[in-house]
């Protein structure tokens, strides 16, 4: 007869595995939400099909694949328990995805990732550091963020985080889903093609200061301070 402690140990290992995988996948999911929020990608679909295309191509697919693999592991672990195997696989997978999506979204709203990001920028985050440092490089092509400096006849001048100044050109085809009234100091997201120092805007929308974005954090953008 096998001693009881060996079964207790197995049960503890199973539960520990479940907790570790859950926390890990929750962290990664919230990081994806945070990433999409910080680089502005999740606002892109408001610009129609082109914005949606940009959103899809900007998704961190490798990270999503890793999350999917963790969900499979989680599902295998959950099926050891009666609440897992008594229901169809599809129910438990959707249940996991729903809980994961909701809690991941909620965690992304907390200061957790912003704090870790700051630590990474200050070289004080050894393991996950590269993940956060990569955020700046993950800015999708054709998507720009910055502060309105001055208004011009064609549009406005915008300064980005690297203090580069671009002319944002607005034409009759530019999509302005949330209005066209921009004033100096507004933080904006622009979708468009960059030629020399001019962005031919396909779509522009104002964004909230409180949203974290690469380098800006929650502090007022540098353009405002000048």
């Amino acid at each position, binding site marked *: *007869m*096998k*001693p*009881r402690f*060996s*079964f207790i140990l*197995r049960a503890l290992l199973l539960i520990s595995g479940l907790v570790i995988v859950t926390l890990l996948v929750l962290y990664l999911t919230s990081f994806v939400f945070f990433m999409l929020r910080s680089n502005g990608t999740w606002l892109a679909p408001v610009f129609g099909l082109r914005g949606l295309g940009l959103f899809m191509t900007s998704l961190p697919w490798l990270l999503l694949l890793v999350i999917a693999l963790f969900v499979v592991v989680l599902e295998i672990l959950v*099926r050891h328990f*009666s609440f897992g*195997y*008594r*229901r*169809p*696989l*599809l*129910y438990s997978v959707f249940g996991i995805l729903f809980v994961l999506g909701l809690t991941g979204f909620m965690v992304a709203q907390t200061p957790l990732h912003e704090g870790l990001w700051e630590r990474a920028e200050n070289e004080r985050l050894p393991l996950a550091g590269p993940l956060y440092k990569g955020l700046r490089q993950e800015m999708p092509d054709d998507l720009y963020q910055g502060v309105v400096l001055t208004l011009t006849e064609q549009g406005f001048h915008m300064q980005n985080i690297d203090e580069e100044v671009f002319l944002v050109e607005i034409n009759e085809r530019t999509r302005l889903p949330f209005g066209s009234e921009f004033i100096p100091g507004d933080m904006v997201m622009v979708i468009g093609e960059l030629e020399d120092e001019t962005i031919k805007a396909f779509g522009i929308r104002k964004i909230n200061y409180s949203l974290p974005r690469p380098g800006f954090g929650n502090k007022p953008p540098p353009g405002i301070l000048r």
Partner: protein
Amino acid sequence: MSEIHNPTDEELVREVQDGASEAFGVLMERYEDKIKRYARRFLFGYDDGADIVQEVFLKAYINIQSFDAERKFSSWLYRIAHNEFINAIKKKGREPLPFFDPDNLFPHPTAPESADTEINRQEITELLEMSLDKLKAKYREVFVLYYFEDMDYQEIADVLKIPVATVGVRLKRGRQMMRTFIEQM
């Protein structure tokens, strides 16, 4: 006059877990015939059925400390038997056993527990005796547990670790298959 207390399976397991190994003999007496019957109906044409049943009880004894006495002992024992029988089928390689069953994937809302009348149930049981060997293992097992071992959907789901609705679907499909076999006879 004092009544003789007949301990439940779970009480006996607790005794075994506390060191009274002889209580396992009582459990064996209670379940030996049932598990043999289950093996006979599930493992068609396997000469070593008796050995496999012995293996089931040996495994149950070795792992008795893992049993949660708050749960049902019979479901736990049948679960061990199910695993041993499936392993035996895999070893002999006579029947294909799919790694993944799509029935477990989707919900089956149209498969509630059917209320067979006694006559209907008896008829099906008799027909089953004749055609059980023609059914695939995954249907055969559910049939044996439902019609011969008198388990409900929930218990079968716990033994086979499949969704409750899948039990209903397998029974329904199995009945349709049986009907086809009988028509062909």
